[in-house]
């Protein structure tokens, strides 16, 4: 009996103890479940939940015919959980030749003790496969988007490039980065014991938005035609640089923009900044005689001169002021105004320009877009240099009409000649046609826009065009003449300024601006060759032939039939 009672008491005590213990544990569990402390919550979240960042795909860049100029590929980036690596020296020696990295640098990363360290990002598929074959513990891979440019150097200065983190660093990639880059998405994902995400336990996600696509005004084939011509001129003339711009004068679309030297955006790190600079919009130069187009337009628009009016050109040398003698390359006697422009007589232009008032001339210079950015939509555009009238010297009205004492960009020159081609209306140059989403819906469309209101009247534009046609047919621009088509154009040869501030006698900028076909202009082109070497250095000798080659190919490509006379000759050939 005693035994039973004692036994029962003990049993009750034990049961009670267990009950109390269970109650405490249950209470604690309930308290943890219902009223968790911040510390525990954080710990659990860190162990079980991970944020999955979803990288957006950068928008594709197309040319006007929807041919890809910039696209993305997904490549492996290799990382190490160095904290888990036991033999970092061996791992470094194995990885070094495959990743093409210094062994000591690799070992430093592998033995850093950090939970995550990049070894090399965006490696090729072959390299990735080789690393995976090594089966080194704690070496992992993450897929990342990398920008690729399938045409290499083609249009590299326009397209620019995006860096390692897919952020635009140059060209359209930089200027339109906001549209191209998209917005990353993320989601909170539960992960299992092996740290793999369990998709069924997703919460709080933000949808990824891919970047918009960019449709450029560039035509890949026209760009290539210009690239090939620029490359040839650059090599043949051993020039410091060559720039070619092709523009549709009617709507301002830039069809091609080429610079030499150039670079491959796929390997942008291998090229110095000087080669990556878009000289067409950044570099300025004294335009020389090509600027006589602006002078001629101004005096004609003001009604100060007639085409057949004659001026004495002083047989090649004219003392303008004491100590300043103006020279012509070729001595001329009496020339009509038309001939002055065709033969590019400096003395003649000076005498004509004496008739225009300074403020009116300044008005036209600004009206043609000089001294201001065109707003083309590419980074780093220069304004050029146009001094205000208050800073003009006594010699300014001698220098400016023939394209000195002013600095312009090649883009400004092609815009100016385009305004003549476009009946006196200056269009804003554009590099982007539209911004579209993945499904092709237009997000933003760039409509043709007038840069300023009309620069000169249609009549003046027509008169200047006639002068420029003669300049090509009989004047300094004969090397730009193309059988079957009427071409308008003007040559320019400007001495460069030395560091001493004096004009150089062996460094020139040779240029040619023009458009074709004259009756219905489809393209206007500027060719600028900086420091051509050799005995031929004038715009007519070196830039005009480049213009002819480019325009000839472009007109064929655009299927523009030759002018009527030529067509008749061709027809007779076959009948």
């Amino acid at each position, binding site marked *: 009996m005693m035994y039973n009672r004692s036994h029962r008491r003990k049993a009750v005590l034990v049961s009670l103890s267990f009950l109390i213990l269970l109650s405490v544990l249950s209470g604690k569990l309930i308290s943890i479940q219902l009223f968790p402390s911040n510390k525990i919550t954080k710990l659990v979240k860190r162990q079980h939940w991970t944020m999955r960042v979803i990288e957006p795909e950068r928008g594709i860049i197309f040319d*006007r*015919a929807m041919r890809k100029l910039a696209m993305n590929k997904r490549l492996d980036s290799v990382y190490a959980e160095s904290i888990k690596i036991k033999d970092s020296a061996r791992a470094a020696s194995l990885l070094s030749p495959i990743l093409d990295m210094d062994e000591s640098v690799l070992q430093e990363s592998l033995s850093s003790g950090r939970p995550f360290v990049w070894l090399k990002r965006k490696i090729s598929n072959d390299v990735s496969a080789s690393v995976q074959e090594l089966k080194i513990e704690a070496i992992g891979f993450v*897929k990342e988007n990398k920008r690729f440019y399938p045409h290499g150097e083609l249009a590299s200065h326009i397209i620019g490039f995006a860096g390692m983190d897919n952020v635009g660093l140059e060209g359209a990639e930089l200027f339109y980065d906001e549209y191209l880059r998209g917005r990353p998405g993320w989601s909170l994902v539960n992960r299992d014991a092996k740290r793999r995400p*369990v998709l*069924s336990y997703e919460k709080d996600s933000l949808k990824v938005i891919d970047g918009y696509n960019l449709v450029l005004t560039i035509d890949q*084939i026209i760009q290539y035609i210009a690239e090939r011509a620029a490359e040839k001129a650059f090599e043949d003339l051993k020039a410091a640089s060559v720039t070619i711009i092709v523009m549709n004068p009617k709507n301002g679309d830039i069809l091609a923009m080429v610079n030499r030297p150039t670079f491959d955006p796929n390997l942008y790190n291998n090229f110095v900044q000087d080669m990556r600079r878009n000289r067409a919009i950044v570099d300025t130069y004294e335009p020389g005689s090509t600027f006589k187009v602006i002078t001629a337009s101004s005096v004609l628009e003001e009604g100060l001169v007639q085409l057949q009016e004659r001026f004495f050109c002083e047989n090649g040398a004219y003392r303008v002021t004491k100590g300043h003698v103006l020279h012509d390359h070729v001595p001329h006697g009496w020339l009509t105004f038309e001939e002055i422009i065709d033969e590019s007589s400096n003395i003649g232009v000076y005498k004509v320009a004496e008739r225009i008032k300074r403020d009116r001339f300044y008005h036209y210079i600004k009206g043609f877009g000089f001294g201001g950015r065109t707003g083309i939509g590419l980074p780093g555009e220069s304004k050029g240099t146009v001094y205000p009238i208050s800073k003009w010297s006594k010699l300014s009205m001698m220098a400016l009409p023939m394209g000195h004492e002013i600095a312009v960009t090649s883009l400004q020159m092609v815009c100016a000649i385009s305004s003549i081609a476009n009946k006196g209306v200056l269009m804003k140059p554009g590099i982007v046609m539209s911004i579209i989403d993945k499904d092709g819906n237009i997000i933003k469309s760039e409509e043709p826009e007038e840069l300023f209101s009309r620069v000169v009247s249609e009549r003046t534009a027509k008169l200047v065009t006639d002068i420029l046609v003669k300049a090509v047919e009989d004047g300094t621009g004969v090397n730009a003449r193309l059988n079957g088509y009427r071409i308008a154009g003007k040559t320019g040869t400007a001495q460069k300024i030395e560091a001493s501030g004096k004009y150089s006698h062996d460094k020139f900028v040779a240029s040619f601006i023009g458009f074709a076909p004259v009756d219905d202009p489809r393209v206007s082109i500027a060719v600028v060759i900086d420091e051509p070497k050799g005995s031929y250095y004038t715009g007519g000798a070196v830039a005009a032939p480049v213009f002819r080659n480019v325009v000839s*190919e472009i007109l064929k490509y655009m299927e523009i039939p030759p002018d009527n006379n030529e*067509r008749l000759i061709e027809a007779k050939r076959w009948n």
Partner: protein
Amino acid sequence: MKNFILWTGIILVIGVGYVWQQSEMVKVSYDIRDSENRASLLLDQNRDLVYNVDRLESPGNLDKGLARNKMKFEVAGYRRVINVSGKRESANNEDTSEAHSFREGLVVQNMRDFLFQAIGGKESIIFNLFSIR
């Protein structure tokens, strides 16, 4: 007692069902993830191939390839273009009716011209850039 066993059984079945459903969800999520990975791999391969096609079709690349065989790459003149498909890309999507009718009327001449080039210009082969795509 019967009720106790019944309710215990029901709760057990519900519990087991819930656990089974959860494990199936995890399994399916693994399958989804594998499928996503496979799809991603295929898309990556597709991207690589598209890139290679674009790179190979690049005019610069074609030009270099032809130059190796001592051939010159030229833009075809308007009289040397034979439009088979009836559709073609244009530089500015404009095709004047004048140019179009003129081209149509010259198909035979195009052929003759092409043959003339093929026979006469041995080192100069005229390519129509439009027909590349």
